[in-house]
């Protein structure tokens, strides 16, 4: 692929701006990235971008970071991926560093303290909202396996103090075993076709 002049600088500045101006995490930044790289800069075509987003959302780590790695790599190779990650990570790094500088002083202020406590009630509500929406999605699944995993994981983490990472690994193993069993049962066919 022929790289246009100044692509590295443009890539870095684009990801920097996207990261600095986006509140609300991965699911907000992804459509904005699509807007920037597909519609505005025309570096990636629509279908490719959808594939990249699917990979970003199903990989571990922050979705915004994953998406910028993929876009950067697609546009300008390994150096591109590195620059895109730097651009995505720098704004929160700088902003939080500055905030934590006067966090200690401000936190002891009575009014700030009250405001933080009240905002926490708001944050707790936001998280409950997320859980309700995601939980309802799981309960709507046709197969009983998924609600069962949800309930058992909750009991394990909340009441039995099982290590979170252990729960994740066990559930991943269940998912893999389930796929293998269903394949043997003929419920899914091998669709993966090796590309030429």
């Amino acid at each position, binding site marked *: 692929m022929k790289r246009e002049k100044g692509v590295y600088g443009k890539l870095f500045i684009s990801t920097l701006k996207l990261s600095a101006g986006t509140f609300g995490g991965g699911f907000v930044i992804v459509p904005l990235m699509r807007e920037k790289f597909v519609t505005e800069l025309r570096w990636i075509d629509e279908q490719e971008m959808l594939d990249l987003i699917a*990979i970003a959302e199903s990989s571990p780590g922050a979705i915004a*970071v994953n998406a910028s790695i993929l876009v950067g790599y697609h546009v300008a190779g390994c150096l591109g991926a590195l620059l895109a990650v730097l651009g995505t990570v720098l704004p*929160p790094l700088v*902003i939080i560093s500055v905030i934590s500088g006067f966090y200690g002083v401000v936190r002891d202020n009575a009014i700030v303290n009250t405001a933080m406590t009240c*905002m926490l009630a*708001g944050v*707790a509500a936001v998280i*409950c909202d997320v*859980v309700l929406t995601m939980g309802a999605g799981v309960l709507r699944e046709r197969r009983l396996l*998924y609600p069962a995993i949800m309930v058992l994981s909750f009991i394990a983490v909340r009441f039995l103090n099982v290590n979170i990472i252990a729960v994740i690994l066990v559930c991943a193993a269940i998912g893999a075993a389930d796929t293998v069993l269903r394949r043997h049962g003929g419920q899914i066919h091998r669709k993966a076709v090796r590309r030429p």
Partner: protein
Amino acid sequence: MIYAQLLWSFFQIGLFSIGGGYASMPLIQHQVMDVHPWLTMTQFADIMTIAEMTPGPIAINAATFVGIRVAGIPGAVVATAGCVLPSCCIVMALAYVYYRYRGLDTVKGILAALRPAVVAMIASAGISLVILAFYGQRTLPKDLGGINYISVALFGVSLFVLRRFRVKPIYVMVGAGALGTLASLFI
């Protein structure tokens, strides 16, 4: 030594938070409160509040905040690098695999089984935050009477507004902060 601990802790957070955003919250809580004595529950709740109000992924915000408190600016850089490192390796590898063998059933099966577990973990961490908001401590006290009624009211109104009108989280939080502060001045 402290740098190695920061790097390893946030490497694990980066490696095991699947689904982005809130999925990293229980892992961060586990690493910075249970495994290492880096933050108190109040500080953890503060960083979640700050992370919601500032741009950038929650995990990166938390890494910076914890890193800088534990080991200054270099600590922040190390923690952030640790958080991003697993993504860099895994995303690249997955992209390669994906382009060669599109639509891997096993990968899909694993992800489908992980999603309910992630919801359960977010729910558990969310309950801790609700208890903290209502009682000012991480676990339920023996005497349930010492509840903060302003917080309960703000929580109720926030949840209603979020579910009913799909208001953006940032407005809900700032609104809760402003309303609660005003209310506490007059009560």
